[in-house]
């Protein structure tokens, strides 16, 4: 019987396999950041161990880093300690670190791919659940706990229990204005936040194949929000074109050998998935969340659901709690929900294509009075590219704040937070209670919806701007 993409990558990394024991898997790339690594380095130090493969390890600072005044000392002493600890650990153990101020600094899941370190057929881990992002390249990539971080540092391997496979097949054309974010939000709403538990999801089908690498990363990024261990997309010409010439991509003969191997990384025709979900791309539309988990979402054109309409009592209870926290009423049109803040950024939608999309909507327009809009590039490189294209000017001319790279308001570990009761349209990935600041209310949206929402002051899509002034009405928006 044939094998799926995930099974092929797994099999290629088995170091030892024995009855009654988990497989020991080799890890090709280990990404580190300041929050989940300090105790792991401590463990190494106590046991007198070294990092086994410094050449497969890289660190960046992202969760705690400020997005303003980055040349000044970090105000929060606890955040500062966490960053200083990472710097000390990396220096002591010899790990390459891209600290705040470095040109390669940024959100760990944006940095790996842009350096060309994330490659098809590799195993990638990081002490962060959104490591699933890297699966967009056909890598088997997943988040791990701190003990496992230490384990990988010391051995470059992990003992892992087997997974099940799920195919999410999306066929057809995405309608105009519908993005990868809308697609993945719709998938999560369909299968639920626990629907992917124990599975590695492979996204496939003609709609997926047409996606750019940035869009594929957005899709794989949120696999974890469906409870899945990882998400993957088979590598193809789009993947190879993205990688070619990147700093750590193979070159010369190695490139040819790599591509030859990468081409084998496709699910065999006779392979069987443990579970399959089929989605019609043509039926999708801009999607937003109304609740406090990423599965509580609906098309923008819909209304806030009535908890009473849920047959499952625990779903009903969860919906009631969510509406209470979010300050929404059943039946209210989602388009009528007004916001105070708009956040464009994060490892879900903080890449150049996302900034271009938001800028195209904002070009020649102003954000609504009373709305605060933060644009935070996923990495310094993304920020530089945006500046080169003049996107920063578009944002600031529209009244948005252009910030320095980092996780920022995705989780508010730095000063970028919502105040209690504030409502935000956010391109990030989690709308949990308090995620963006204590008492803050989050609606997950695409960059396009974020930008249109900023202009109108309520949840909206670019189509709602028709007839209103804006450069994009009279000429092609900022070109790629």
């Amino acid at each position, binding site marked *: 019987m044939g094998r799926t993409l995930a099974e092929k990558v797994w099999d290629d990394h088995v170091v030892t396999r024995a009855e009654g024991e988990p497989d*020991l898997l080799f890890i*090709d790339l280990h990404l580190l950041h300041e929050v989940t690594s300090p105790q792991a380095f401590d463990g190494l130090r106590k046991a007198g161990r070294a990092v086994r493969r410094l050449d497969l390890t890289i660190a960046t600072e992202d969760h705690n880093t400020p997005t303003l005044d980055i040349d000044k000392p970090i105000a929060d002493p606890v*955040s500062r300690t966490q960053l200083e*600890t990472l710097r000390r650990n990396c220096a002591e153990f010899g*790990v390459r670190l891209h600290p705040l101020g470095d040109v390669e600094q940024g959100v760990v899941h944006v940095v790996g791919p842009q350096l060309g370190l994330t490659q098809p057929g590799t195993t990638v881990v990081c002490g962060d659940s959104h490591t699933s992002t890297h699966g967009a390249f056909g890598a088997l990539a997943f988040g791990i706990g701190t003990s496992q971080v230490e*384990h990988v540092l010391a051995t470059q391997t992990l003992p892992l229990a087997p997974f099940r496979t799920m195919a999410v097949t999306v066929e057809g054309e995405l309608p105009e204005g519908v993005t990868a974010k809308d697609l993945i939000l719709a998938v999560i709403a369909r299968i639920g936040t626990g629907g992917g538990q124990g599975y590695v999801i492979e996204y496939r089908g003609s709609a997926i194949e047409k996606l750019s690498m940035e869009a594929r990363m957005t899709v794989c990024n949120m696999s974890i929000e469906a409870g899945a261990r990882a998400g993957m997309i088979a590598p193809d010409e789009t993947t190879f074109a993205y990688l070619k010439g990147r*700093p750590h*991509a193979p070159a010369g003969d190695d490139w040819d050998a790599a591509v030859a191997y990468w081409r084998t990384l496709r699910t065999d025709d006779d392979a069987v998935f443990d579970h399959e979900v089929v989605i019609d791309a043509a039926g999708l539309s801009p999607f937003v969340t109304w609740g406090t988990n990423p599965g509580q979402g609906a098309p923008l054109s819909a209304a806030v659901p009535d908890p009473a309409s849920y047959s499952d009592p625990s779903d009903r209870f969860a919906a009631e709690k969510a509406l209470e926290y979010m300050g929404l009423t059943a039946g209210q049109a989602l388009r009528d929900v007004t916001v105070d803040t708009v956040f464009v950024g994060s490892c879900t939608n903080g890449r150049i294509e996302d900034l271009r999309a938001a800028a195209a909507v904002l070009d020649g327009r102003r954000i609504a009075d009373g709305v605060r809009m933060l644009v935070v590039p996923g990495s310094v490189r993304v920020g530089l590219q945006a500046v080169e294209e003049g996107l920063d000017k578009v944002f600031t001319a529209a009244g948005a704040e252009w910030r320095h790279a980092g996780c920022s308001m995705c989780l508010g570990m730095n000063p970028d937070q919502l105040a209690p009761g504030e409502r935000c349209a956010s391109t990030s990935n989690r709308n949990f209670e308090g995620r963006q600041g204590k008492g803050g209310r989050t609606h997950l949206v695409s960059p396009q919806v974020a930008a249109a929402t900023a202009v109108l002051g309520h949840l909206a899509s670019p189509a709602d701007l028709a007839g209103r002034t804006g450069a994009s009405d009279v000429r092609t928006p900022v070109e790629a």
Partner: protein
Amino acid sequence: MEAFTTHTGRAVPLRRGNVDTDQIIPAHWLKKVTRDGFEDGLFEAWRKDPEFVLNRPERAGASVLVAGPDFGTGSSREHAVWALQNYGFRAVVSSRFADIFRGNSLKNGLLTVVLPQETVEALWRLTETDPAAEVTVDLVGRQVRAEGITADFALDENARWRLLEGLDDIGLTLRHADDITAYEARRPSFKPSTTPLGAQF
């Protein structure tokens, strides 16, 4: 990891179910950069109440926690296990543990023992009546013993062996160091590598 063979100590009866990791160690403790020093964060909200069982003088120095069902649900934070260990707990008894918490605890040498709810109740009654009563958690014999109570428990053989030997996963994996080296030797040259510190980038 410290080996766990058998442990005898006084117990803390925690008559609560569904104790999630946010209750075990609240989120604001996660900015700490060590594995120790979490003892003051353990059950932080409840400890504000002087009558909370952990605050009672007769429970000082107790090392076995006897909790209600579904202990350790919620976020995967390993800090929850560290907090229990930092406080001095060597074993936790409950009728049901959340998966991730259990995995984390066994990785760190905190023995999580699953016993039927009736036995948990019996342990509660005993240790509430006599706070000085000792409870023995015997991993060799896979048994929990206290006055008038003898209860066998199950634990998967691989996990039990690791605990008995005091092997952390790393120690165990390093027994395969030759296999790892052999794998590395056959790894294709086109695989990505970073440039370690000091090397030219």
